[in-house]
């Protein structure tokens, strides 16, 4: 039956399972960052493949900005319950209330404030490792990220002082207060994620598929009409048939006009796409080094 050769999805899968089992074996208090987005949905399936028939040996952690798409949180809660996982949610709202996160005057976006909220959650639960769904193909600074990304006592990433990662040997050692972020999907591309969702018949939130939505034109993108930043006078609001390609906050996630109703349609659309996935995220456009600056400060 075998030709003893793995195709690309099988190869990526075995690599990711290996990484996840290393986390379970090497860390005392790991957590898995689960947002309900497509990448973390793949992470959960990989966790099932790595650890079943046992329970997934780590809780799920989500930083809720308060600006999430409502559809997403419902999906997140249900999926965690289905898998029998403990779900920990920490909100930017309460981090602001207790002083862990301080918004700048007039700062509306919760993007930056996720960072202190996450770091406070890590401290609260004494997590020594957080598994995240980031991929290297998303963005230029991510392209230099390791599987095991070492963070100092302040949660900072130092791109000039990364541990070399050689063969499949990971150095997971930490001193007290230090922390590791681990990215099992490092080598996956957007296309691989969707092909895996198809292969594994994974459920994804409905907003990835084509739906009718009121959108407002801002910074060259169609953003969903929302209550946080309502349309101003003179802004163009339109009824469109759209989907999201990547999910961030409702105030910064661009919608693309798309008729894609199935995973198959999405795969076809990506194959033909001429804009990268993060091209629809306003938070990265601010400057060319936007992602690098956020990562240095402790972003996922």
């Amino acid at each position, binding site marked *: 039956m075998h030709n003893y050769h793995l195709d690309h999805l099988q190869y990526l899968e075995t690599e990711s399972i*290996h990484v996840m089992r290393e986390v379970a074996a090497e860390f005392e208090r790991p957590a898995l960052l689960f947002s309900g987005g497509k990448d973390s949905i793949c992470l959960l399936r990989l966790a099932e493949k790595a650890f079943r028939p046992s*329970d997934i040996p780590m809780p799920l952690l989500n930083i809720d900005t308060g600006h999430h798409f409502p559809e997403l949180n419902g999906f997140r809660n249900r999926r965690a319950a289905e898998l029998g996982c403990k779900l920990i949610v920490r909100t930017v709202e309460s981090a602001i209330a207790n002083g862990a996160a301080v918004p700048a005057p007039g700062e509306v976006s919760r993007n930056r404030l996720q960072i202190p909220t996450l770091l406070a959650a890590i401290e609260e639960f004494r997590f020594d490792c957080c598994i995240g769904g980031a991929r290297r193909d998303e963005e230029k600074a991510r392209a*230099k990220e390791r599987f095991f990304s070492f963070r100092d006592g302040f949660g900072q990433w130092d791109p000039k002082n990364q541990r*070399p990662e050689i063969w499949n040997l990971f150095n997971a050692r930490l001193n007290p207060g230090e922390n590791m972020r681990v990215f099992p999907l*490092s080598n996956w591309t957007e296309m*691989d994620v969707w092909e895996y969702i198809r292969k594994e018949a994974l459920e994804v939130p409905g907003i990835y598929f084509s739906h009718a939505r009121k959108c407002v034109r801002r910074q060259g993108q169609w953003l969903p009409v929302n209550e946080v930043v309502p349309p101003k006078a003179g802004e163009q609001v339109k009824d469109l048939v759209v989907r999201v390609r990547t999910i961030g906050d409702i105030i910064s996630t661009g919608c693309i006009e798309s008729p894609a109703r199935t995973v198959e349609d999405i795969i076809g659309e990506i194959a033909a796409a001429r804009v990268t996935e993060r091209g629809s995220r306003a938070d990265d456009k601010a400057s060319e080094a936007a992602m690098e600056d956020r990562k240095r400060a402790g972003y996922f």
Partner: protein
Amino acid sequence: MPVPLHHPVDILRLNTCGSVDDGKSTLIGRLLYDSRSLMEDQIEALERSADLTGGGQIDLSTVTDGLRAEREQGITIDVAYRYFATPRRRFIIADTPGHVQYTRNMVTGASSANLSIVLVDARQGVTEQSRRHTCIASLLRIPHLVIAVNKMDLVDWSEERFIEIRDQFEEFLPRLDVRDVQFIPLSALTGDNVVETSKHTSWYPGPTLLGHLEGVHIGSDWNLNGLRLPIQWVNRPNRPTDPGLHDFRGFSGQVAGGIVRAGQKVMVLPSGLVSTVKQIWTYDGPLEEAFCPQSITLLLEDDIDVSRGDMIIGPDNLPGASTDLHARVCWMHSRPLQRGRKYLLRHTTRSVQAAVADIEDRIDMTTLEPEPDPPELGLNDIGEVRLRTSGPLVFDGYGANRLTGSFILIEPGTNATVGAGMLFPPAEVVKPEYSDFAI
């Protein structure tokens, strides 16, 4: 709308290396650009930064030079990974930097590669860096090597110059262990022979770079001789009331060599305990057999003691097991490796302590000749080292198996990864005490 691919595609991992200004980043930019793997917004970002700094011309090298410090210095300082696909293959490129002080990044980027591209500037010919990179690729046993003779446009597409450079390489290649070499004349700047066949090199009958990357045979790059399963995690569901799971005790890991079959005899090392494979458990159902590098969970017939760091092996192609190790080490830290120093050694899923018993030689990167008895190995040095470990390692020679023949050294205290080791074949292999195991 193009039809998505349904036939199986595999993954080729490659790395690029060369001296500063040999044009590595430009070459990768060119591969991505010409294979239509750059997206509109990436091209837009390129054009935006070109307008600011480059006087209007798109600089393909900025596709991979991701970090701000690099853009400021105009050099690549860390390994950057890039992904692209053609209908035949997926590619993972590790763009590894070329300056002397960053050899450790090349080892990082190249360790898991199927193929290395060594770039040479056609005007410069072979430099110490080209020798060093070719030597490292050979030490790392990268199965396929491409010598990309770049900037051919600046030497008028001279066949004579191309042959001259090939001859320079062939002077020292026989001293290295390189199995498959392809020389390709190209220009990353103009794109000739990268994706499109050049009109200027009618004298060159070979493939373009992308043509070669798509066609090179990687089916046999993994070791399929001699079962090795380093135990990563013991899977014990805590469900005393579930009769199906009450006795479940699985040994999870990634097959690091060979093939395992349900019903076969296996031995656990270093304990030497023997059992039979009851089942190869996976989330997708049991398998009849599993092979390197699949991730699986083994159930054994007997209730024997197995834990993380142990190695399950089959009866053929036995490994070595020893506390005395002989390895070639690439040193990656400014604090040198010296005799008597102690490190943590990580090999497969096993961690032990290791003391440096001796440093036998250090490779002179100019001559590629070993110098005996150096006082130490400094940053970027490569040499032969004897280590003594606190517990036995079950290992193979690196040449036979990259996964069970490699280790890293970690400095206690800082926890920095300071060295990468490639083991020589064991002086003797384990001798199974059970005669029925050897059958």
